[in-house]
C-alpha cells in the first residue's frame, strides 16, 4: 500500500523560504536548455555569479566541505562580505550577515525551470518589506535574463566543477 506523497521540489522550497523572509523575492523562468546545462552555470559561482549579478565584482570560494561552501564576495560599491553557502544539484542558498540569496532548478523535459531568490537580513526588514518587494519585482527578471544569456553563451560543453 503506497500512500500519496506531495512533492516539494526545489523551486517550491525556494518559494517557501522567500515567503518566510520579509522583503525577499523569488523570480522564476523557464530556460530553453536541459538541467545539466543550466546548473553548470548556477554551480560555477566563482566564474558566473559576477556575470549575472551586476553589483558583484568577484566571488571567491575560500573553503569547500561537501555541499557546504564559504566564499568571499567583493562588489563595485565597496561591498565585502563572507557568504556561507549550501550548494548541490538544483539547489543553492547563500547567506551573508545582511544578504540572503538562492537558486533552484527543476528539469522540465528538455527545458529547465529556474528560480532566483534575493533578500536582505537587515534588522528593519519587516518595515522595509514592501519596498524590498518592489525592488525584487524590478531586479528579479533582469537577473534571470542575464542568467539565461549566460546559459546560452556557455552552451552545453562545460559541466559543473
Amino acid at each position, binding site marked *: *500500500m*503506497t*500512500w*500519496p*506523497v*506531495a*512533492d*516539494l*521540489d526545489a523551486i*517550491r*522550497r525556494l*518559494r*517557501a*523560504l522567500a*515567503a*518566510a*523572509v520579509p522583503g*525577499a523575492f523569488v523570480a522564476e523562468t523557464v530556460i530553453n536548455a536541459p538541467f545539466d546545462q543550466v546548473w553548470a552555470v548556477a554551480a560555477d559561482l566563482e566564474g558566473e555569479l559576477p556575470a549575472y549579478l551586476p553589483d558583484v565584482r568577484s566571488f571567491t570560494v575560500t573553503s569547500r566541505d561537501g555541499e557546504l561552501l564559504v566564499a568571499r564576495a567583493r562588489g563595485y560599491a565597496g561591498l565585502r562580505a563572507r557568504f*556561507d553557502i*549550501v550548494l548541490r544539484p538544483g539547489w543553492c*542558498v*547563500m*547567506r551573508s550577515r545582511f544578504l*540572503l540569496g*538562492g537558486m533552484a532548478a527543476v528539469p522540465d523535459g528538455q527545458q529547465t525551470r529556474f528560480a532566483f531568490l534575493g*533578500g536582505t*537580513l537587515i534588522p528593519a*526588514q519587516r518595515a522595509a518589506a514592501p519596498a524590498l518587494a518592489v525592488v525584487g519585482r524590478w531586479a528579479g527578471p533582469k537577473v534571470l535574463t542575464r542568467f539565461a544569456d549566460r546559459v546560452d553563451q556557455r552552451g552545453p560543453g562545460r559541466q559543473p566543477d
Partner: protein
Amino acid sequence: MTDTERLAGLVHAAQRGDGLAMAELLDALAPAVGRWCGPIALQDADDAAQEAMIAILRGLRGLRDPAALFGWARAIAVREAVRVARRTEREQTDELAHLPAPGDPLLAADIKDVLTRLTPEHRAVLMLRDLEGLDERTAAALLRVPAGTVKSRLARARASFRKEWQA
C-alpha cells in the same frame, strides 16, 4: 552532535532570522511534510506542501521547545492540507452515498482512488491514525475537534476504506 541537538540549533538560528538555517530546516522537514500533505490534499498536495512549509517557517518563532519540532510542524501541515483541499473541493455531505457499487470498474485497488472519495477531514483522520499512529485524543487535538468527532470520522473513514478495498 546528535540529530536532535543539530535540529535544536537550527531552530534557534532560524528563529533569529538565519536564512541558511531556515533552508536546512526546510530540507529536514520536506519529506515529512510531503508525507503528511499527500494523502489529505491529493491533487493539490504539492500546493498544500508549499503552503504548509511557509506556515511552518513563518510560525517558527512561536515554537518554544525545539524537540517538539516535528509534532508541531505536523499539526500545521495537516491543518494547511485540509484548508487547501477544502478550497478546491466541495464538501461531500455523505461520501458513502457517492461510492460506486461493488464491481464498478472505478473501484481500482488504488489507495489514492479510495482517498478521493473521502472528505479532506476524513483523510486527515485516516492518515493520522493509520500512517502516523496517533491515538484519537491526539488526533482530535491536532484537528481542533472534539475526540468524539474524530472517533466517528475515523469509523466512517475506515468503513468506507475497508469497503473499497474489499470490493
